[in-house]
């Protein structure tokens, strides 16, 4: 029997442990209704703005809410509540209130749904003060970050790649030993390695790990770091994990401009953790997602391109090691 997806237990454990926790959804899950009652699994119309505002109102009055928004793309319909209400209430009230509220939804990956559905806007979301932006890169990381989110006293958005839910999810590279809770703002060492460091986030973690396997076949031993959360961004942790005097490749599906990776790269350079000449970024193109797979492919980094970037950008450095 194949193991059950670790997300299920993460959600159920929280609902069981916290009887005052509710879930908002447009699609009600029968098993959860059966277990926890329709009162706690609140079925909503297509009204994301009110959904998020209501979740805030519940959170302010002492209940935790998990907003299952289906897709992060629909969070834009609730953006005032996110930017102006959810993430400001505690501060504006002078600390009188906490906002234990979690939004989860599909980001993008392998679905080909087009520009209005395919969003993984962790860069954009990380610009909202006070918001934790979790970007799991593996099934265990998803469960681990969601577990932490569901006990966190402040608002959290979890961007869940559909790739973590395909029928073959269990075949994905899994850097986390277990689905146990993972801290926010702490990058993880996803793979040890001695020749170059690759840093990924979300979908690019698996891509980097697969690229590392391919590179190993060519005698290159790549270290892989998983950022896990875009905000807080673990700048110092990454700086401590990159291999000194070795190349660093930052890999991101989001466009480069003003991204978490440009921020990180600057930090690595300014702290001396990486050499400006030996740091490179491989990022998505700043283009709305087209539906045709033929068009989407060239816009995102993939395993081939990562291997290529690692081998070519850093050829002299790698040669230095493998004469």
């Amino acid at each position, binding site marked *: 029997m194949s193991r059950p997806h670790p997300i299920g237990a993460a959600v159920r454990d929280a609902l069981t442990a916290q009887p005052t926790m509710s879930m908002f959804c447009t699609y009600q899950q029968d098993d959860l209704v059966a277990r926890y009652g329709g009162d706690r699994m609140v079925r909503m119309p297509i009204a994301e703005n009110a959904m998020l505002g209501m979740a805030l109102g519940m959170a302010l009055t002492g209940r935790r809410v998990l907003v299952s928004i289906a897709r992060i793309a629909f969070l834009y319909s609730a953006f005032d509540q996110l930017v102006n209400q959810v993430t400001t209430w505690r501060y504006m009230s002078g600390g009188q209130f906490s906002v234990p509220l979690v939004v989860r939804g599909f980001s993008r990956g392998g679905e080909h749904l087009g520009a209005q559905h395919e969003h993984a806007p962790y860069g954009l979301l990380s610009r909202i003060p006070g918001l934790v932006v979790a970007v799991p890169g593996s099934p265990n990381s998803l469960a681990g970050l969601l577990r932490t989110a569901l006990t966190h006293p402040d608002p959290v958005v979890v961007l869940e790649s559909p790739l973590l839910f395909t029928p073959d999810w269990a075949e994905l590279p899994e850097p986390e030993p277990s689905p146990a809770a993972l801290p926010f703002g702490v990058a993880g060492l996803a793979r040890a390695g001695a020749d170059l460091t690759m840093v990924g986030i979300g979908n690019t973690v698996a891509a980097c790990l697969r690229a590392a396997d391919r590179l190993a076949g060519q005698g290159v031993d790549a270290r892989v770091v998983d950022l896990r959360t875009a905000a807080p961004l673990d700048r110092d942790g990454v700086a401590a994990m990159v291999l000194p005097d070795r190349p660093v490749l930052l890999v991101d599906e989001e466009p480069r401009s003003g991204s978490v990776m440009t921020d990180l790269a600057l930090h690595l350079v300014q702290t001396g953790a990486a050499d400006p000449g030996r740091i490179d970024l491989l990022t998505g193109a700043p283009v709305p997602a087209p539906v045709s797979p033929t*068009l989407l492919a*060239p816009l995102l980094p993939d395993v081939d391109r990562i291997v290529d970037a690692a081998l070519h950008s850093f050829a002299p450095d790698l040669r230095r090691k493998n004469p």
Partner: protein
Amino acid sequence: MDLLSAYRAMLEIRLFEEGVLRLAGQGLVPGATHPYTGQEAVAVGVLAARRPDEWVVSFYRCHGHALAAGSPPEPLLREILGRDGGVCGGKSGSMHLADRANHLLGSTSIVAAQLPIAAGAAMSAKLDGAGRAVIVFCGDGALSAGGAYETLMIAAAQRLPLLVVCEDNGWQDRTASPLVRHLTPTELVRGLRLPHVEVDGNDVEAVHEAATGALAACRDGGGVGVLVAHTYLRHFHSQLGPRPPAEYRPAAERERWLARDPLTVAADRITADLTALRAEVAAGTDALIRRVVDAGGPAPATAATGITVTGDALIGAAR
């Protein structure tokens, strides 16, 4: 409207959509498809009443609207399958069809987002002063969205020549609509004091008659109107990937509605023999599908073009 041509138009949509579902089952449709099967009488009846220079705005369930708006099937199917020669160059896929040449302004996959966009087109039409209306389609669930309400209220205050066609199929994905709203679409628009008409959405003649009247009122300065068409999805909400979703609607409800299929309703009124017509449309659809399945994808070099008119250099540094 000639009933025989309406039947043909509905049959073309039906077979097109069944073809798309077959292709989806073979993994040939990237993304999701939202079949229009069962609702054909709405698109065909309404759009037979539209003038060709009147804009149509749709949503993710747009294949039927596009075909009924006169958009040629081949570029549509190429688009839906992500092949070369798609009406939107492979960028829209199934859910966002647009065809300027046939005055299909576009379609959105964000529920209700098409409504204000259509109202803006209607504002243009009003300023143009040429007596044109704009037609926008939406589902019944869409009327719960704040943007739908805002649009209806502004359209009323501004007396915009906008016909909102609400396809009331009773469901919003796997949720029965009455579970999440205390008013039906008709009760809602009546409550908001909007001119409206309720119609059997599976009767293409009834739809056409209602739309003709509603559009005439729009064009004559009567302001926004709502046409609520009661109808039902023959298949299901949507399919993402090769397998159709599990059935979610009560069997009795399905049987009741499927017995009133819009094609049957129309065919029952037609005395002529439809055998040859059916064979012809089927053969045409099959040939179309073969042609498109054999086509390649669009040129990858076009992927990062067309984000802005002014040149994609402006969009910021790529890698």
